[in-house]
């Protein structure tokens, strides 16, 4: 079974408005966005962004994400420290949410995108259905990692009782926000159609 794709008909699809136009067009005839048959330098761009995100992930986890000032003593806490504290406080479900959103999701997203880039580069024989599902997951979870940054922002704004108790933001919050944003851009610059293009070639 040969699939009838837009590319096989020499048509490019506008990434913004989904208009189909001849692959030779540079701008979408309907919305004016720049048009490409496939995203330019998709793998290289995605990889560069993934490496940036991986580097940012280190300060995000090593530095404190917030500092609690209580009766004159300052207590910094990291992302993982916060999770441990929550477990000690007995709120395991919330600890799980924070752990999933701030540790598992960004890490698995980085690994998934690295893996997909590798598959496209090496033309690995893998299931396109599975890889597409993996990519869609990585794309979907993107912004949910921001939960932890928002929690810090809320606690900083809310807990402010003068000398008695206050919460200050830590540098890790900015680094972590950077990880989330850079991985979101990385997912956007990856072109999942590249995975399907190869099966077409392999079948022929």
């Amino acid at each position, binding site marked *: 079974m040969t699939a009838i794709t837009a590319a096989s008909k020499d048509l490019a699809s506008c990434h913004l408005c*989904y208009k189909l136009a001849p692959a030779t067009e540079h701008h979408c005839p309907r919305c004016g966005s720049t048009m490409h048959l496939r995203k330019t330098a998709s793998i290289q761009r995605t990889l560069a962004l993934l490496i940036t995100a991986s580097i940012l992930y280190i300060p995000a986890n090593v530095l404190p994400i917030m500092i609690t000032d209580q009766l004159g003593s300052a207590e910094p806490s990291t992302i993982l420290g916060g999770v441990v504290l929550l477990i000690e406080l007995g709120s395991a479900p*919330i600890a799980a949410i924070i752990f999933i959103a701030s540790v598992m999701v960004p890490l698995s997203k980085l690994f998934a995108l690295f893996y997909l880039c590798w598959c496209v580069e090496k033309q690995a024989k893998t299931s396109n259905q599975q890889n597409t599902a993996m*990519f869609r997951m990585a794309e979907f979870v993107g912004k949910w990692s921001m939960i932890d940054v*928002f929690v810090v922002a809320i606690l*900083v704004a*809310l*807990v402010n*009782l003068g000398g008695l108790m206050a919460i200050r933001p830590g540098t890790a919050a*900015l680094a972590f926000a950077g990880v989330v944003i850079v991985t979101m851009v990385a997912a956007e610059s990856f072109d999942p159609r590249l995975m*399907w293009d190869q099966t077409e070639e392999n079948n022929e």
Partner: protein
Amino acid sequence: MKQTNNNDSVNKQSFLVACPSCDLLADTSHLKHGETANCARCDHFLCQYKDDGIARSLSYSLSALVLLALACSFPFLSFKASGLESVMTLPQTALRLYDYGMTELSILVAAFILVIPLVILLLLLAICIPLYNNTPNPMLVKTGRMVFTLQHWAMAEVFLIGVIVSLVKIASMATVVLGISFWAYAGFTICFTLALSNLDRVQCWNAIEHLTAEPSS
């Protein structure tokens, strides 16, 4: 409400969509009210046809705008411990970060939870009103491009979950009271999500094209 099925070849081709995820071509012209089209090969969601999509999006945008205005004008949460109380408003979520010298982070937070959603709502009104009234507007194409570019970057729903997590995190330390703004923001998040999901990309762009096309073509 304007229908596109009485139109000829220009719109016939617009019903043909290439899956953004695997490039397979799909014909979406058979869709009836409320039906969705998914890619036959990779199951990617392509579009949903609704006769009244524009009207729905318009009414949800208006409700969301009112709720967002309410959310910004009342206390969001208050925190009481040892006889002391601190109250925060929604804009303070970003402003306090600025006070602590984290300018970049405060700009990001303000953008994700307030500014981008607000801009999207205004752009939605700028699209839906002309489409609903069938009046051509020279700004439609530009507005449409901005809405579909910005929509990934609105994080109202993520913020709402963040609020719930924060509540649980500090509930043991002190008494936390939910303000009017919290409920307004929760309502805003629902209306905002519905406003965006009712504006189908394929249908919206076909309508924009139909409205801005010159009579000769």
